[in-house]
């Protein structure tokens, strides 16, 4: 009896020279260069080394319009995440279990990612404008633009593909025998979804939730194009503080606070859901 050993796609000379430590070092180096260093740079920029308090910018950043912008960003981020997960789950479920044209539909899910966000947001704006196609065809004038609803719907539309793909991946990994076993043992369709499919697809839901929440909370273009004066999010405030007020110290402080809040939120989420375990199963 002969045994066929598959050849590694990586050349021998490379596998001999690169150890796990090297791979870890590349990852840590990447994060250090593109995340830790920029954040440290921002921390230094945010401190006041002149007259007055060292944390003057932080004092200002934790009051007035900035608190509203932080709160608004996290609320919009949360609502967008919930809505996106609902829509994405339905779509991914259809793709995984019911569709006969999976490749075509997956392509349609991915295609919007090739189009710049700003064009997609402007597309929505044109669509819902009083002279847009919706009003022209139906005669209805929907008073949607420049509201919180418009911003959340815009963000949901923009980030839907980021949720569909991981959820579809985890649903697709569920063995049909498991579902059949549930049905054979007497569970109805909804009970099977609730007690078998949903728990097994949880890694995809968690991954999608984290990705969408991070992207939505830090959105700049969504509120800038689809929102009004009361829909300004923290990214818009950071841009304004820098581009209009030329206050780099305050803009840096806002960015640092936002990053700390986001990392704290992910850490709290991790404590509840154990991201490593959930994403490891993806």
């Amino acid at each position: 009896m002969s045994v066929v050993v598959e050849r590694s796609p990586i050349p021998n000379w490379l596998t001999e020279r690169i150890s796990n430590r090297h791979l870890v070092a590349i990852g840590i180096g990447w994060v250090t260069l593109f995340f830790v260093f920029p954040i440290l740079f921002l921390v230094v920029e945010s401190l006041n080394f002149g007259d007055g308090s060292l944390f003057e910018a932080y004092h200002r950043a934790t009051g007035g319009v900035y608190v509203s912008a932080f709160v608004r960003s996290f609320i919009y981020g949360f609502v967008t995440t919930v809505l996106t997960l609902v829509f994405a789950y339905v779509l991914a479920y259809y793709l995984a279990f019911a569709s006969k044209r999976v490749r075509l539909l997956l392509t349609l899910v991915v295609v919007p990612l090739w189009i710049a966000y700003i064009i997609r947001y402007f597309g929505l704006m044109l669509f819902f404008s009083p002279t847009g196609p919706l009003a022209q065809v139906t005669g209805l004038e929907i008073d949607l633009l420049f509201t919180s609803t418009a911003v959340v719907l815009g963000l949901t539309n923009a980030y839907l593909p980021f949720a569909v793909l991981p959820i579809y991946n985890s649903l697709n990994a569920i063995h049909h025998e498991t579902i059949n076993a549930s049905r054979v043992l007497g569970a109805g369709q909804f009970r099977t979804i609730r007690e078998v499919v949903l728990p097994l697809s949880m890694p995809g839901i968690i991954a999608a939730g984290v990705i969408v929440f991070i992207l939505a909370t830090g959105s700049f273009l969504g509120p800038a194009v689809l929102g009004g004066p009361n829909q300004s999010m923290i990214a818009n405030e950071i841009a304004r503080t820098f581009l209009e007020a030329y206050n780099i110290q305050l803009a840096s402080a806002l960015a640092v606070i936002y990053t700390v809040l986001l990392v704290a939120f992910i850490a709290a989420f991790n404590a509840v859901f154990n991201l490593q375990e959930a994403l490891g199963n993806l």
Partner: protein
Amino acid sequence: MTDRNMVTRRTALATIGAGSLAGVAGCLGGSSSTLRFLGFGGNTQEAQMEIFERWADDSEYEIEGTSAGGTTEMISMIQQNPGEFDIVALNDTGMAQGQEEGVLEPIDLDEVSNYTDNIRDGAQELTFLVEDGETIGLIRENGATGYAYNTELVDRELTSWEDIKAEEFDGDVALLDRAVDRFSNCAVAIDADINDAADDEDLFEDVIAEAEAQNENCFSYWSDGATSIQYLRQENATVCEAWGGRVLALQEDGYDHIEYVMPEEGAMAWTDTLAIVDGTENRETVHELLNVTYERENLLDMSEMMNYTIQVEDPPEEMTDLPDYAPVEDLAFRDWSKILPLQDDWSERFQEVKQS
């Protein structure tokens, strides 16, 4: 402002400029027979390039135009690419900021005699064009920020800032998203001068009250002229604070039901300016180019292409018929030595107004 703040701002401007470097590098040849112009883009840039090309056709030089999204980006591009730009077009805010950042160099007016001959004396002496007795900027076009409205949706004539506060326009008004410009127009609306409000707390609070009153009907604030026109075209806005030249261009596109209003209380003036970039290797040629630009015929052509006023002596009827035409003597300009230090606080106060 502390030295520390200055260093910080420069560092950050430099960071943005670095991001623009790759794009600029692709556009710029670096040849000494090429003059590099940095402007705002849009039809003012096209008009300017048309005039520059006339000169270039008869010279051994080529002109390359680059555009940037705003004054901060323009100044950071200049800082990050020393010697890569020769001429820049900045607005009055940009001139004040450019002086502070030291990116402009004095202009020898003896070499630009067409400027001194053809531009009104009053326009040459505006505070943001002169630094320590030396001219650092040449006024190009100017205008005022009034507003436009859709006459198909409004059955009466609008003539004042008071009119846009009417209840019938609830949620139908769009305004300009720049604190200093917005407050300037609100000051004019209450018959005050924004320069006085800069050092009069009570007067400034009156300006804020007017800004809050105008904000009540506002559904959105726009930060670039194209968006204001888009709001009017798509009927998102019934009334929209706007620039006269943009509205005129819209009317020429067939939207003649959009009417531009120079409010009876007046409106704050703005200017665009040409300046020489510090460190240019083509200083002599740039002066020659500027001199040609300020030939009367070229100035009138530019005014016609831009739809804005250029402060020439004896303006023709086509120019005086422009919606926001006014001789420089009738215009109020901002004193940036007072306003620039307050810009940060005003920007934050403006955010509070918008969310009130």
